[in-house]
């Protein structure tokens, strides 16, 4: 059958990895280690798996990736501006 020729990534495995990362994320709160780098690392890894495999950016046209990437520098600028305002208020 022609339809059987489709090859898909192992989505269930990706889901299992995402759940394991969530368990690690929650567990790290109980460990005597600096939490912020771990929490950011786990969240970025989870986000990357979702975007690359579930949203298919790894396999789809690069135009979609470009479109999705362009607001992130603006978002970082926003972060910088808001933090600047916040620090300004605290000074």
């Amino acid at each position, binding site marked *: *059958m*022609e*339809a*059987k*020729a*489709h*090859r*898909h*990534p192992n*989505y*269930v495995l*990706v*889901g299992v990895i*995402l*759940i394991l990362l*969530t368990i690690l*994320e*929650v567990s790290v*709160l109980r460990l005597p280690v600096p*939490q*912020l780098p771990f*929490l*950011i690392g*786990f*969240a970025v890894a*989870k*986000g990357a798996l*979702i*975007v690359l*495999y*579930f*949203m298919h950016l*790894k*396999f*789809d*046209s*690069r*135009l*979609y990736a470009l*479109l*999705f990437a*362009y*607001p*992130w520098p*603006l*978002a970082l600028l*926003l*972060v910088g501006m*808001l*933090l600047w*305002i*916040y620090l300004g208020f605290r000074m």
Partner: protein
Amino acid sequence: MAHPPTAGPEVAVDSRKLGVWVFLASEVIFFTSLIISYLVLHNRVTSGPTAHEALTLTIPTVNTMILLVSSVAMVLALAHLRDGNRRACIAWLLTTAWLGICFLILKAAEYSQHLREGLTPSVNVFGSAYYTVTGFHAAHVAVGVIWILSVALGLRRRISPQNDVLVETVGLYWHFVDLVWVAVFMVVYLLR
């Protein structure tokens, strides 16, 4: 026709998918603004409950698992449709919608618990920021559930392996909602 997962500009661009990606790009800015506002405001509490006092991890962690599993269900719906199995596709779409409803029920239970304990949207700046961020996310989940149900039930006759963009676009939206929750879960609940 086989669709091996190869990356590159040679993959066809669909205008409807393009529209959804543009919309999602605007949503990145929207949710970044909300999350950063929360980060700036949540620890400026002078009276009433703080994030550390009011928030617990149990319901949000279960909700995280629910959304992650729903994303797997959503992507399996698309995979089954592309394999020509329409019935399995609709079953996975309905599973996704059901998991979304479970998320909303648990969110409502969490809000109810907060309100009983005195954390209202107007009690302090943390309350306002918390309900704004999580409320907008929950509203996006609700829209996603309605969209998935409309694709699975109302428009099921139009779904076919050749016309999978209906499922793919709602899938993109749903995974984005999951992506936002990953950020909200970390910022609001884990960094509390």
